[in-house]
């Protein structure tokens, strides 16, 4: 019988019998070694430094670039995870497969999502100030206010419910014998909240395209 190896995040390997679904790591060790991939922190630092440089210099092209690129990625990821990965892929996987997926997927999300969110908000705010979008007369101003409200609701859902569930799953996966019941409970929370934020991103798309085609002043 051949063996496959499942590389644990951040280090060692957990050998699995060929064909057997990866279960709670048990004698093979935990599925996950590190919560956050440390090499990714370098990328995050470089990207945030570039964003801050654009903000400090009030450089419009840079602000626009960071706002559009990071905002687009944030929206696309939320839609893809919330409407495709969550309900159509994760929800249909067996528990061992979900755990394996989560061990590889969620540490990356711990870095990617907060970075995209702060880049979008910081560069977006500065861009809005620079082009005078905050000073516009009504009704255009209400579109901007609506975007603040949508982002605020998404922030509360993402930070208040989704992120703690994500973190809880990761910590559980570090245990020698993760609890399938707890991971299932937290995974359901993750899937539902990702779906809600995914749907709310549709509202963001409507608002942002409306704002982008409005005339300021």
């Amino acid at each position, binding site marked *: 019988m051949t063996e496959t190896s499942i590389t644990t995040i951040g280090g060692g390997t957990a050998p699995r019998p060929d064909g057997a679904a990866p279960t709670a790591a048990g004698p093979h060790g935990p599925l996950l070694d590190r919560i956050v991939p440390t090499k990714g922190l370098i990328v995050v630092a470089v990207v945030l430094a570039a964003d801050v440089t654009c903000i400090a210099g009030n450089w419009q092209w840079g602000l626009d670039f960071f706002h559009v690129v990071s905002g687009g990625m944030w929206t696309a990821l939320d839609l893809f995870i919330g409407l495709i990965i969550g309900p159509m892929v994760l929800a249909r996987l067996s528990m061992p497969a979900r755990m394996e997926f989560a061990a590889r997927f969620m540490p990356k999300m711990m870095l990617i999502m907060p970075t995209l969110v702060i880049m979008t908000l910081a560069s977006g705010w500065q861009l809005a100030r620079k082009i005078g979008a905050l000073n516009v007369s009504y009704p255009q101003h209400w579109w901007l206010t609506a975007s603040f409200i949508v982002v605020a609701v998404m922030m*509360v859902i993402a930070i208040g419910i989704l992120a703690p569930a994500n973190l809880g799953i990761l910590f559980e996966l570090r245990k020698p014998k993760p609890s399938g*019941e707890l991971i299932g409970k937290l995974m359901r929370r993750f899937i539902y909240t990702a779906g809600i934020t995914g749907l709310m991103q549709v509202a963001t798309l409507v608002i942002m395209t409306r704002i982008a085609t409005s005339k300021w002043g």
Partner: protein
Amino acid sequence: MIGTTGYTADTAAGNRGDRYHATGTESELLERRLPPIALAAVAALVLVAIGGVYMAAHMPRPVSLAPVVGTTVAGWVLFVSCEGMLASIKGFAWKTFFRIFLWAVLAYAVIGGMLEYIFILDHVRGTVLVILTATLVLFAVDIPLLMAFSVARYQPNE
């Protein structure tokens, strides 16, 4: 952080202390009832968001600060009440809690710092800056508390 009100199994059966004590088995960790810390922390986050939207919707025009002062103060009250409820738990995974809390504070200090920098760069000064700073500090400590509690509650007693 350990209080004296006694959320512990050492108290008699039926005492609410039994609900807040965990011996660490999987089912006990899943079933145990804890004070509504996560709820209060999310409520504080909602208040931060309301205050932030209110300010953002009006800036840079002059605006009454009373609503945002109200949400910020209420948010801090909720945060302090979270601390109080946390302190009343015995048999909690404090090591895990503080490990997550401190790393998350570091991460959210960077995020909050970026936003603070933008406000200063945009010449926000005086009372408005003080209120925004208080809101950002609450943001940077409330979220780590929420994350740390949400994870530590399922960890065995340390």
